[in-house]
């Protein structure tokens, strides 16, 4: 390997990292799930910092509306609907440095999560849905691998480093996922790039510290805002009854989940099953007002149109995503608009 001493001279001069910390960083392997807004900023930060191996997983394609906040993508990628991992790899390769990239243009789920995270020292959250985060929490706690949750909506964000066995996990804070349709997403409530940058910067800082520095003494939940500028550290405790980190039950990872999505032959449509029973169609209609077109709701369904196609949602959480035959794409749209 070439000598990178000069390249990293400024950061190794920072005493708490030093050359030893840099060497630990270069020996690390990190799984980064999602390489959109948070994920792109995280990938850039880790590659520039000189992490050894970065496993990038993303299921989606670049779109024009990504460009204000997804720092690895350009107009060309949006015009060509380039897979996000491929576009990310092109940009990251131009940065250079010692990082080896491993790319997976796939949807991370319970069938591949353990394999994708094998030998990783850290799991980083760059996802856009809570369902995958509950899976990452199960995966990390079961395998005693640290993971760092980051979430953004509007101008605000949350960051929590989960250190299995040492501090609270995601389910100590939010024991159960919210019902489908009850959560605002970046599509329904909007999002600002600086909010993404704040959250990703704090996640990346925690990542460097966990990979290369002395252990963190305690974990806190960080709440950040980029529009009414403020950061706040909130105290949360481990829940002695936490189903995940206390009782070691990992349903999001281990329970057999029937295939969530199937292509409907010849219809340019994918059917996506909800993960959690009933869907709040009225709540979903409220959050989509002003976002989706041609909203129609009756007791049997909610139907709406967005630029990417038409989506019909049923009370049991099942949805038909029209306008694509790509299962990963349909899952991405489902999670984007139904706020899983």
């Amino acid at each position, binding site marked *: 390997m070439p000598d990178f001493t000069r390249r990293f001279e400024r950061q190794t001069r920072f005493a708490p990292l030093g050359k030893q910390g840099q060497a630990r960083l270069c020996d690390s392997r990190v799984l980064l799930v*999602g390489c*959109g*807004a*948070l*994920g792109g900023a995280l990938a850039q930060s880790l590659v520039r910092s000189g992490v050894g191996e970065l496993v990038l997983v993303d299921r989606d394609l670049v779109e024009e509306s990504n460009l204000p906040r997804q720092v690895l993508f350009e107009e060309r990628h949006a015009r060509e609907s380039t897979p996000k991992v491929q576009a990310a790899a092109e940009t990251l390769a131009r940065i250079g440095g010692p990082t080896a990239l491993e790319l997976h243009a796939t949807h991370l789920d319970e069938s591949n999560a353990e394999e994708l995270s094998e030998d990783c020292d850290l799991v980083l*959250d*760059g*996802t*856009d*849905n*809570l369902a995958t985060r509950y899976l990452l929490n199960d995966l990390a706690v079961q395998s005693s691998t640290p993971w760092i949750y*980051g*979430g*953004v*909506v*509007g*101008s*605000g*964000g*949350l960051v929590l480093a989960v250190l299995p066995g040492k501090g609270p996990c995601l389910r100590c*804070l*939010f*024991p*159960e*996922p*919210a*019902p489908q349709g*009850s*959560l*605002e*997403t*970046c599509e329904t*409530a909007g*999002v600002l790039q600086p*909010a*993404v940058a704040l*959250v990703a910067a704090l996640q990346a800082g925690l990542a460097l510290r966990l990979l290369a520095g002395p252990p963190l003494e305690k974990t806190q*939940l960080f*709440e950040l*805002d980029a*529009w*009414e500028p*403020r950061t*706040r*550290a*909130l*105290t*949360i*405790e481990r829940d002695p009854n936490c189903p995940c980190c206390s009782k070691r039950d990992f349903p999001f990872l281990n329970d057999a989940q029937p295939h969530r999505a199937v292509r409907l032959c010849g219809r340019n449509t994918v059917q996506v099953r909800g993960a959690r029973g009933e869907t709040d169609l009225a709540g979903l209609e409220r959050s989509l007002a002003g976002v989706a077109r041609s909203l129609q709701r009756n007791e049997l369904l909610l139907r709406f149109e967005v630029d990417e196609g038409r989506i019909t949602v049923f009370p049991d959480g099942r949805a038909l995503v029209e306008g694509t035959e790509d299962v990963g794409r349909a899952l991405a749209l489902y*999670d984007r608009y139904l*706020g*899983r």
Partner: protein
Amino acid sequence: MKVRIPSPLVSYTHKREVDAEGRTLGELLGDLDQRYPGLRFRMIDEQGALRPHMRMFVNGEQVRELSIQLRSSDEVQFIQALSGG
């Protein structure tokens, strides 16, 4: 007292930090709903329980009961699980 609203619910208040009154968290939520109609229902379900994706903090410490007593100097913060990224 000062109340910090989760960023996804800013469509109701147009700002993150608002003023509201109440001797308990339950009363405070009632007052918030008077000022910003519909806001309480986004936090509390039909059975009167805090929604599973919502959490409450008083002066930076997590609290779980709506009956908890408040002082006018307290700072109340609601956190919502954030799905975006």
